């Protein structure tokens, strides 16, 4: 190997590749590299995905069936199971995402994080790349919930655009909550402390949303909290796109706008705080 020769080759290549230097292109390619890294990990060890089958099954088959029989919750013309299936899907994605903070702390303890942070990759890419991979893990949850829903004879909208829409909203939800988790991890830095806080946050997010009951039946104070909870908008959109004839309370446009804005803000905050993990 001749390092001089290499450098010369690189110089020529550099001129050809100058467009790659544009910040936006650089940002996108680096983000995708980080996502690729996570996908490669998943490919080597998909067992993690399989172990996540259990939770949605429990919620739909046990909790869902029982409440459906009790007819305790008013869900309009929709059956209770049809109402809650999208909620269970969003919840599974939430759990996948909240796990990301632990992974970040783990990577810090192993030292992996230091190598990424000492590289020129944009910090935003490091954060967003991971967040997107949370979305991809979330897609596997969608497959599980759709299969369960079909078995339970829930009337699903299997139109390709509706399916694609569901994936987009899963992705946005995963970006928001995995980055939220990353931010907390960067603040607490210790795994045990994170575990407690992670639990503490997931449950309120879930219960203060329209996942398993409509917001209309909540007490007033909880309604207020639900309206600033991104999970509410994620579920509203997924419900409309997933279940045939399910109405959207806020409208897809508003759901999308709220989630996109929340994603941008939280990823921006995440990229500012992520370097703290190395200290």
């Amino acid at each position, binding site marked *: 190997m001749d390092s001089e020769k290499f450098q010369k080759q690189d110089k020529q290549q550099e001129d*050809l590749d100058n467009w790659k230097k544009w910040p936006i292109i650089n940002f996108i390619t680096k983000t995708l590299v980080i996502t690729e890294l996570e996908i490669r990990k998943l490919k080597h060890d998909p067992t993690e995905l399989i172990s996540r089958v259990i939770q949605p099954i429990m919620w739909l088959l046990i909790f869902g069936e029982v409440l459906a029989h009790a007819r305790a919750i008013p869900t309009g013309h929709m059956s209770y199971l049809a109402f809650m299936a999208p909620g269970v899907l969003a919840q599974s994605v939430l759990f996948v995402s909240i796990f990301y903070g632990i992974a970040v702390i783990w990577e810090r303890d192993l030292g992996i994080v230091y190598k990424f942070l000492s590289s020129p990759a944009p910090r935003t890419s490091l954060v967003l790349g991971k967040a997107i991979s949370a979305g991809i893990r979330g897609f596997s949850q969608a497959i599980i919930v759709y299969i369960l829903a079909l078995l339970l004879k829930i009337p699903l909208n299997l139109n390709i655009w509706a399916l694609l829409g569901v994936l987009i909203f899963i992705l946005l939800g995963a970006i928001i909550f995995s980055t939220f988790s990353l931010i907390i991890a960067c603040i607490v830095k210790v795994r045990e402390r994170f575990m407690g806080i992670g639990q503490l946050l997931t449950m309120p997010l879930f219960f203060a949303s329209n996942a398993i009951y409509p917001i209309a039946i909540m007490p007033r104070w909880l309604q207020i909290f639900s309206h600033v909870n991104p999970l509410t908008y994620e579920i509203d959109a997924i419900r409309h796109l997933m279940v045939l004839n399910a109405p959207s309370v806020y409208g897809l446009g508003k759901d999308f706008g709220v989630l996109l804005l929340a994603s941008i803000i939280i990823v921006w905050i995440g990229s500012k705080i992520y370097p703290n993990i190395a200290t």
Partner: protein
Amino acid sequence: MIILQTEQLTKQFGKLIAVNHVDISVQRGEIFGLLGPNGAGKTTMLKMFTTLLSPSFGTVKISGFDIVKQPNKVRQIIGYVPQMLSADGTLTGYENLLIFAKIYDLPAKTREKRIWELLELMNLKDSANFLVRTYSGGMIRRLEIAQSLLHQPHILFLDEPTVGLDPIARQTVWDRIIHLSKEYDLTIILTTHYMEEAENLCTHLAIMHLGKVVAQGTQKELKKSAGDPDMSMDKVFSHYAGAEIEIGGNIHGLREISETRQTARRLG
């Protein structure tokens, strides 16, 4: 040519001064060792050099770039191997290199060639497609060094490169480091608390103790300034950092060390 220079470099964690007004300069092509006991501040120094921590006070310039004002310039010309064995165990050796090749924008055309050359250089060709979690400590270290070389850095930072390795693995890592220095004229800054490593590997040394650099120079210079050109490095080390530090010695900084030590004792 000076490639790295610090001025009054200081890092404080609350009340603890982990790195205390350090001035060092490293010339191109040196294997520069930061030698010091646990807690001396070696890792903290490297974290500042690699833009992971910002100094509380003072400056660092690498190839003329300021680590605080031009971190992205610095990041493009440095390679870093952290103290822990930190290659990703859930990926193969090849994938570990591939991801970083992409992070560092190696052109797709030459990427494969470069990766396999480095695997060859680090004697890892045969295990390239195994998951890294099946690697031995020495193999992981060599993989990490390969990873840090992908983008042809001007300067390589190795934090305790052979800690936890058996003697044979340590020897191979030493051998690779010397090879890199000789063949590619690469500047290497490494930390260690193994006297043997400092002696066998480093052309230049800075002895660190409680956040201060108490002496620096070639081994010869250090021995001479410690008073005896035939002294073993062990003796040199304990001369500068050991228990019997004489207050008022002629070496710059010794007085402050013994003062810090007394403070440390009071606090502890």
